């Protein structure tokens, strides 16, 4: 759960009264844009994306304009701009036009979790506006935060001094930056990054103004809900399948899914975080989604998860795979009962379509669970192969992939024909 840009970032910063650059959004009229231009002389036009989207500047998606004509041109070009970062392509949902803040100093500031310090740290540099990774170590400071105290003014002062910040700016920054800890700690953030903060002159005083914000939220900390951000902001990060499964999310986990390839052929029920990591890697493109249904889900929950899964993927998939190591606590019988009851019920509703079922699992009540599956699959006439925990999980996965390739290429149609012949006979 992430956000970027001032459109929603400003809401966040206003919670702790951190100054933000003035901005208007894409719905502003020409007259409003003109007035905004007259007030600020230059505007920074950026596409607005849902979720956390970085590297916009590098992708040439940030324009500085000084006339209405240029502003409208930038708006036209950026309103539905497409941006690819990592393996993800996103489409903009409007633009923001931010006041250009004249400043002699651009500061980078972030608070994040550090595995090195096993706690929160802030990172600061007066050489901001660029990629923080690109800066040499002497130009940036990483400072550990005591979570019970927060950010001390002296820590900001020292860090800025050590990284070469002109003295005149330090006082203004020291007044405002510590507030960000309240935001970070009080509203369930895992990262907040302000880059750049431009320090503008306001009368005789200097004022740091955030010109861009990136934030990510802790899904396990409900505090972010108090901010009142629109639901749609995070919904776009999930697919319809993920959203349906997320409805079942509780603190016990048991229902984590991530859609990987909607054109894949294998419905993979993965049990446990380790199986999730290893199985998703081994299955690659064949896996429709990645999942972790471990943690001993109760029958009702695993039935519901399975019901939703089959509703989304039964028609498209050719294989159902249940994979996990030797469970510690998960009752295999209960989970298998949930999955196969749901499969039976879905098949009787949606019609017969043979999925090849491969199981690799160990743990409490495993044999009882396997026979539960066997009995239902025999009745459904779905073929199956069942392995215990004495078979390598990865070998099972590799075997399942090969079996699925054959099943899709020829096995399934041959089986259908054979059954039809039997029925006719």
């Amino acid at each position, binding site marked *: 759960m992430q956000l970027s840009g001032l459109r929603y970032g400003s809401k966040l910063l206003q919670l702790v009264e951190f100054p933000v650059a003035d901005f208007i959004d894409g719905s502003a009229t020409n007259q409003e844009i003109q007035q905004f231009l007259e007030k600020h002389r230059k505007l920074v036009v950026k596409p607005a994306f849902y979720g956390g989207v970085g590297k916009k500047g590098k992708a040439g998606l940030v324009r500085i304009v000084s006339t209405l004509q240029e502003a409208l041109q930038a708006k036209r070009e950026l309103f539905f701009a497409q941006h690819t970062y990592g*393996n993800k392509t996103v489409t903009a949902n409007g633009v923001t036009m931010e006041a250009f803040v004249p400043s002699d100093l651009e500061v980078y500031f972030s608070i994040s979790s550090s595995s090195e310090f096993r706690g929160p740290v802030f990172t600061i540099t007066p050489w901001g506006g660029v990629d923080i990774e690109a800066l040499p170590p002497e130009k940036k400071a990483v400072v550990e935060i005591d*979570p019970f105290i927060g950010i001390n003014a002296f820590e900001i002062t020292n860090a800025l001094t050590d990284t070469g910040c002109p003295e005149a700016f330090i006082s203004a920054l020291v007044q405002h930056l510590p507030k960000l800890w309240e935001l970070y700690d009080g509203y369930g953030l895992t990262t907040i990054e302000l880059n750049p903060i431009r320090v503008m002159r306001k009368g005789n005083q200097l004022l740091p103004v955030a010109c861009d914000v990136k934030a990510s939220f802790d899904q396990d900390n409900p505090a972010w809900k108090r901010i009142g951000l629109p639901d749609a902001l995070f919904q776009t990060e999930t697919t319809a399948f993920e959203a349906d499964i997320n409805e079942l999310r509780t603190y016990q986990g048991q229902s984590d899914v991530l859609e990987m390839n909607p054109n894949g052929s294998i419905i993979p029920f993965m049990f446990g975080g380790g199986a999730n990591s290893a199985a998703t890697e081994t299955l690659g493109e064949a896996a429709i989604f990645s999942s972790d249904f471990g943690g001993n889900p109760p029958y009702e929950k695993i039935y519901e998860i399975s019901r939703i899964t089959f509703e989304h993927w039964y028609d498209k998939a050719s294989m159902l795979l249940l994979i996990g190591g030797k469970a510690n606590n998960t009752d295999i019988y209960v989970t298998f009962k949930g999955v196969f009851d749901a499969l039976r019920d879905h098949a009787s509703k949606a019609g017969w379509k043979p999925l090849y079922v491969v199981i690799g699992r160990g743990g409490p009540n495993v044999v009882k669970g396997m026979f539960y599956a066997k009995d239902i699959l025999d009745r459904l006439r779905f073929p199956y192969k069942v392995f215990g*925990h004495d078979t390598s999980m990865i070998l099972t996965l590799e075997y399942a992939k090969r079996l699925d390739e054959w099943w899709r290429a020829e096995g399934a149609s041959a089986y259908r024909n054979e059954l039809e012949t039997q029925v006719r006979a």
Partner: protein
Amino acid sequence: MRRLKTKPFPYYVGLHSLEELVTREHRVCVMNILGSESRKVTPVSHEYSGGNIVAGVQYGRRGTLETKIGNIPVYRSIREVMEKGITFDMGVVYIPPLGVCKAVSELVTHNEALKRIVIVTEKVPARDSRNIRALCQEAGVDVIGANCLGMANAWDRVRIGGSLGGDHPEETLVKGSIAIHSNSGNFTTTMAEYLRTAGFGISTAVSSGKDVYIHFALPEFLYAAQNDPRTKAVVIYVEPGGYYEKMALDWIKDRVFGFTKPIIACVTGRWKKNITRACGHAGALSGGGDDAEGKERWFDDYFGVDVFDPKTCKVSKRGVRVSSIQYIPDAVKAVFEKIDEKPDFPSTGDLSLKLWLGDTMVKVPPALDLPIVLAPAPYDRQIVEVNKQVGAHYLRQNMACKSGASRMNPETQVSELHGKTVLDLSRRTLEENLYFALAKVMPEKSDIPTLNLILNLFMKIDERRMNLIDVGRANGCTPNAYLASQIALVGDKELLAKSRGHARFIIDLIREFMLDEHTKTFPPELDAYVQEHLLRSEPSRKTDVSELLFKEVKKSKKSCVALKVCQHIIDLAEERGLEIRDTYEFLLATIAVCVLWNPMLEKRISRQLVEDSVTYFYLMSRIVAYSVVDREHNPHWKKLVDQKLSNLNHSFTENAFKVLFGRVPTPSDLLELQTLLGLTITNGPGTLSAKGAKESVSARNDISMAFVGFLANTGRAHGGNGYEAIAFLVEQFKDAVLPDPGDPDHGVDLQQMANRAARAYGAYKKQAQEVEDGAVKPIPCINHPVFRGNKINVDPREQFVSGMLAEKGVYNAFWEFYRHLVKELYAEGVTKNVFCVNVDAVLSVITLKLVWKDLQAGRINLRQVQELAFTLFLFGRTVGASAEIADHRDRGLDMDCRTPESELSYVL
């Protein structure tokens, strides 16, 4: 920031050697010990570890947690544990995530002797995790987790925290020389299991968790492993996110601490590089350089060799990285050879593909074909045993206000049985619905004659039994009362008990000898077994009915394994000149098992239900037979109940109609009857009738008494409410000339009649409101608490049935009258809007229509009509009650319908 530091670390670590991490000397207190997960896991840990859990905390509750080696006392808070003088140095936290930080604070605040805390809970907010770190660093306490399964020491046989090794830790956690540190709890056990196959055991295993913060991470683990004389090598499982591993390896390289033992590291999760939301482990989300590839590089650089290749087995003395956990055993072997060490014990197998179960339906290409192999002990024995089991299994639970059979849909107010609405069920016959109530699927077409046969058979009664009914009637009993008195006496009569025994025998035989519908030859052992347990030389009692059943079973061509087995038994008996013991009951059981076999194999229904099914069929039939209204004048009665073979092949619904109405039904009569019965099948588990049935099951009664429970919980207000509507309609139509209420050309001006009734009711209402208490008796069967408030209101159930019957050309004058009435009431200003005609009206108008001609002719009186309406309700509801009883018997617990004292109150 000032804080505790323990050399060589820049932070506090309270552990020098892995030997000390978890021992039998440690004393443990478990927070949320009675929570669902702990309640299962903690006793196993306690028993495995020699009873090291000295106390548990359950906020607000005291008690004990039972274990095989003694109970663990449970207190309301840590303070209370301390006040009792109980000392402990390890805390285990199972508290839900938002309470974890507070629980840790409580442990640290009240117990200065505390050394370590294991947090099992998943999804602890990162904020709380950093606060826990700060708290425990200040207090000098090591934290393992969160989101972990704790730690285990195989040398001392002790585990603390979660469920490493599962229910049988001794199976997997075998003593040896490998220390495990794993980001995955499941892989901790799985890797131990893999290592065991190659001859390596465990010294200590730690499930570190994989949240954003790992508090007991690789640097301190390796430091402690180096100082552990039991540990010869370290196996680690790593996922993306965090620089813990880099820190550890850098510190070794920089000689912050010495480390000389080999490491076998598995890094997975390359695919997580580009995801922005965690799936699986919350902390397995990489930032910049801490993705899987980055981590692989750290290890490869440290080891100085490429990733392990099982063909070349090249490793260094520092160890090797493996690409997946399946290579860990081979890699450890290779590393041990390199450092000149021997495995801990002989290898017990390998990790190759071993198929435990496979289908015989699809032939796969030779390259994919695998033989089924014998699973290792004890799973081999379990496979043989479990294979004999059949049918659905349910988890026993308190079913007091719950049902796995019925529910009232809160949005539509339409009740459902096994997911089908009563509207759908009202399109089905009584026999279909009874089968559905038990089997949870509708019968196959070929099963319907069999169902009719068995149901009609059980209508054959000893007519002397009717004397009791007559006494009841004479005493003014309502139908539920006299039917209950008869059903109570059924008990678990020999016929039912023996049929159950035979059903059990047949199912056992099929599973024990692994028979299915493709079985062509039966093994001689089966024949011997049958001869010993079922056949005998003394002749069995024969009746026309048993002869008929015998012929039916023998000639049936149905493809069902139960039938095949029974046909084989019949042949066997004939061949050997022997008789089947209790042939009639055996044949009944055969039929019942046969019709319910498929739903049982599909795990829709339990084996118990199949064994009991003869009883359900019997009771349904008997309720119908005993309900005859006026048997003296019923021309069909004798033929229905005598011991002759007439009527057996008719539809059971048709026979039920004949019992009640004393005539052969027309198709439209039958349609209306089954509509009426379908609608009354259930109204959810909260109804009195369902509760009565469930409570009786809860008291562990026979099935027949559970039916009595249902019957006893119906009455004039529940089931008998048709009394009022029928009386109202009869009053309205007393002067009308209506020879046939099913004829739309009846010539009666129903609108005018309705207007008259509306005005009369308006006048009555006005008058009633003027008297002091102002109580106004409503017109029965109009309005509904849910379907009200609109200008024109409609009960969708009534609308559905009306549409369905109209489609079939079925007309009902009383119904039309009701529809006019609600409009006229509004037109006359008696009601503020147009009330709906509710579904209860449907029941009354159909009943009245079915008996109208007899009533007009004086062949039946009003009281009998009202009893009939009640009886029809009971017929429908018997179907629903059967489902409810079967469900409660499958899932419920003894006495679960009892109300706890705390929920009771005394009223002055």
